[in-house]
């Protein structure tokens, strides 16, 4: 009989004192070869910015490997893989990272390059989980088993568009073009 799992609660309005790290937004250091900046805005059901959210990211390295003992493919790469950025007054966030490589999926499939995202905020009693895919990976995206499980009309909300220095990925918590979120 499994133990009672501890419930989730909101991060509240003051999480910034405990959950922000100076190096949080830097999955890789500034100046890293091939670094990309993923920027976006978090907005609410009226399209207004959410200035008290925090975005966390988890991803494979450029070769599609995780620095984790449960990656069955062998030794760790030393890649942190984790990013964390609180939103500013305009709901904006930015993460500096590298684009992940393709990752093995269930049943021998291949997952397109992707980044797992948790969104926390005042007013969110549990994290909202989504994924970032990349617009310039159309073929890989078409074959991705997780993206394919999202109703076609909503898939676009998970696809980051290229910009001058990386990609843009907005998070619309509610309403028009609401981001597709996952139960995990």
């Amino acid at each position, binding site marked *: 009989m*499994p*133990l009672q*799992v*501890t*419930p*989730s*609660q*909101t*991060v*509240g*309005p*003051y999480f910034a*004192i*405990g*959950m922000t790290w100076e190096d949080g937004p830097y999955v890789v250091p500034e100046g890293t070869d091939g670094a990309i900046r993923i920027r976006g805005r978090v907005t*609410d*059901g009226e399209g*207004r910015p959410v200035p*008290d959210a925090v975005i966390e990211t*988890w*991803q*494979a390295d450029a070769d*599609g490997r*995780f*620095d*984790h003992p*449960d*990656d*069955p*493919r062998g030794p760790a790469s030393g890649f*942190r*893989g*984790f990013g964390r950025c609180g939103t500013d007054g305009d709901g904006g966030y930015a993460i500096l990272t590298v684009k992940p490589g393709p*990752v*093995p*999926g*269930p049943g021998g499939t291949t997952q397109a390059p992707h980044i*797992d995202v*948790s969104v*926390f905020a005042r*007013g*969110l*009693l*549990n*994290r*909202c*989980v989504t994924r970032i895919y990349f617009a310039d990976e159309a*073929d*890989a995206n078409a074959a991705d088993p*997780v993206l394919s*499980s999202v109703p076609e009309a*909503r898939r676009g909300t998970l696809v980051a568009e290229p910009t001058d220095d990386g990609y843009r990925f907005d998070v619309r*918590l*509610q309403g028009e073009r*609401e*981001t597709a*979120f*996952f*139960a*995990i």
Partner: protein
Amino acid sequence: MTDPTPGPAPAIPDLAQYRRAPEGTHPPLLSPGYASTVLRAPKDPLIRMPHTLTEVTGPLLGEGRIGELDHDLTRQHDGEPLGERIIVHGRVLDGDGRPIRRTLVEVWQANSAGRYLHEGDQHPAPLDPNFTGVGRCVTDDDGRYRFITIKPGAYPWRNHPNAWRAAHIHFSLFGRAFTQRLVTQMYFPNEHLFFQDPIYNAVPDERARQAMISRFDLDETVPEWALAYEWDVVLTGRDATPLDADEH
């Protein structure tokens, strides 16, 4: 298709899935009693995500991020903070009761007067120059954590008339996998304010709500120095067998 595509990633064996928390464990995102959920909770149904390699792995952080006094919120300044000194300790476990070793635990809280060191907190209660209200530690090989702090005060908020948050400490936990990530709040026994706290009450299941309340722990008190509370955090556990092929 004529576009070159990257070669497929080499196949790996199918992975043991993490269990999903039973219905009623986590609060529904839309919980209108907590007014801020109304414009922020997604309305479209959540899509069930398989636990792929990305979800069964996760950041293993902490060791290099912990300062010597990060676990002791009473010794981070020149003087001691005002308030009731307490020890908060417990274990981080998975759903099968196995300790989660060397995992980062982050906490933040209001001071003894019920005020956070945050510019957005306008509650007219005093700040304490000797209290930041932020701590972190890494669990030991038995999954144990231990903080020394002061008991946070209750504080008013504007959710409904005469609304007060039950005293709480925010906890952030990573576990070993993206699936296990949890941010929650620890409450205290003998709390009078639960009946009107919509954040606490947003958890539907009574037993799950109780799991957020720490236990007064006489054995861990330090005579003539500090009272103690014990609170275990349970993250999801992992099934023994991989996902059935037909569930892909």
